[in-house]
């Protein structure tokens, strides 16, 4: 919380996006879906992701209608779209929580271990009967019994700034702290692909901005491939290298965000980009 409160005012200032919509052209290049817009970061140890002609139906309801996507190693991809567009379904398929109806999802040549792919949910989903440290150890998966398990969990807690809470019950933590423990649990196995299912959706605005910075920092440190599903376009453009807009079960727009990091929240460039994506989401005639 302390961190969140220290954000300078200019960072959270709202800028009217209609004034600067012209800037958007310079920073955003709409592309054909399926083409990878950025070269891989050479030092990254993330997993590449390749999706081919992915379909998913629940009964008669076809949620995903043919997704093709290539994500290079270490890229931060945000997926936005209206509720019910299939973005969460896509994430669940990538994370292996559901099976696709048809099509394929692959992670490069080598087979990925289960510990390589981790999910962070909208809810913290901590075990209420386990202390904070034990909750983080859950993230180690099959390596939970190994010798360095405690040490690794402690390190992951330090990473999210909660080392001193390790012997607490989850019930005494605040919402933001619980979500940070959930992040530590997702990070502790050293994942190579991290799927975020609106992990900040339930947090208040200031905690949320602090968490976004934390996410960006650990992503930069650990160089995993990140897939973030969010309904907050501002969050998507602030964090991601690339924003995918999903409509009716297809990728409608694939926008790369070539802005230098760390990005200044509320800057004209981000606001312009956000405005143009919102325009796409809400349909023509709403951005002025």
């Amino acid at each position, binding site marked *: 919380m302390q961190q969140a409160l220290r954000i300078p005012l200019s960072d959270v200032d709202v800028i009217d996006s209609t004034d600067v919509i012209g800037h958007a052209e310079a920073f955003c290049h709409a592309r054909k879906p399926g083409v990878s817009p950025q070269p891989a970061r050479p030092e990254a140890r993330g997993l590449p992701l390749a999706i081919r002609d992915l379909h998913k139906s629940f009964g008669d309801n076809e949620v995903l209608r043919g997704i093709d996507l290539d994500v290079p190693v270490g890229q931060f991809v945000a997926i936005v779209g209206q509720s019910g567009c299939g973005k969460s379904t896509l994430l669940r398929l990538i994370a292996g929580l559901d099976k696709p109806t048809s099509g394929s999802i692959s992670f490069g040549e080598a087979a990925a271990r289960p510990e390589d792919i981790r999910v962070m949910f909208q809810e913290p*989903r901590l*075990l209420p009967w386990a202390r904070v440290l034990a909750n983080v150890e859950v993230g180690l998966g099959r390596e939970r019994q190994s010798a360095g398990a405690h040490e690794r969990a402690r390190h992951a807690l330090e990473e999210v700034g909660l080392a001193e809470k390790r012997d607490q019950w989850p019930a005494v933590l605040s919402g933001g702290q619980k979500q940070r423990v959930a992040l530590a649990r997702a990070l502790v196995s050293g994942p190579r692909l991290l799927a975020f299912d609106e992990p900040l959706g339930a947090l208040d605005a200031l905690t949320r901005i602090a968490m976004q910075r934390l996410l960006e920092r650990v992503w930069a440190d650990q160089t995993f491939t990140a897939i973030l599903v969010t309904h907050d376009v501002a969050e998507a453009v602030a964090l991601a290298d690339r924003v995918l807009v999903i409509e009716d079960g297809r990728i409608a727009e694939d926008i790369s965000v070539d802005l230098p990091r760390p990005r200044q929240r509320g800057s004209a460039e981000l606001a312009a980009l956000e405005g143009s994506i919102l325009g796409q989401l809400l349909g023509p005639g709403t951005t002025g």
Partner: protein
Amino acid sequence: MSLIDSLPKVRKLNLPKADGLLPWLVPLAILLIWQAASLAGLVSPRVLPAPSDVARAGWKLLWSGELGRNIWVSFWRASIGFLIGGGIGFAFGLANGLSQLSAKLTDTTLQMIRNVPHLALIPLVILWFGIDESAKLFLVALGVFFPVYLNTLHGIRTVDPQLIEMGRVYGMTDSELFRRVIFPGALPSIFVGLRFALGIMWLTLIVAETIAASSGLGYMAMQAREFMQIDVVVLSILIYALLGKVADSASRALERLTLSWHPAFSKH
């Protein structure tokens, strides 16, 4: 920190020891009023003997060894019956909570049996077992079975599915998932069943001992009635109350020990 947060602390500071005695204030007051009423002649000793008379009768029975023996016999029957019935109920609760097939096979049958008042079986049980130990154990086990079964089943069925999904995603095996997610999640509900079962355990045992027994607290009360020893009858009733309280306190202590993570059970 708000005003409401600080309230319990202030109270604790003022009354550090009285807190433990407070629950006993009302029973103690009732005893005193009762004794005073008896001394004043307001209550006939043939209707309700004075607490001092009851205590004297208790002392006499204690010295003759009769009281200790009867309490021990009743306690033994209650525990064995509880272990058998509770054990089977717990096992069925686990099986039917975890396996759809097992639930389909047995749940309907168990629900039908549940709706028969188990004390209505006493005539049949006497015909089957006579007034043997097994008759009492059977009745106690039957009475204890259902609260344990129903609450174990309910506890397992209502474990947060999001936590189960999380456990699977993080690579827990079935046995780990049970040990670390399902069982701890069902535990608060299992304890509710346990406490219901303890109440039914005493009820069943006393009724069974009153009707068909040659030892035990219920038998002692019935014998005393035959000889018009009202003080002994009242003594047995007071002992039931105490034993019930002991059982309840034991299960509460167990709850506090195992559910310390739960905000409702934590000490601070």
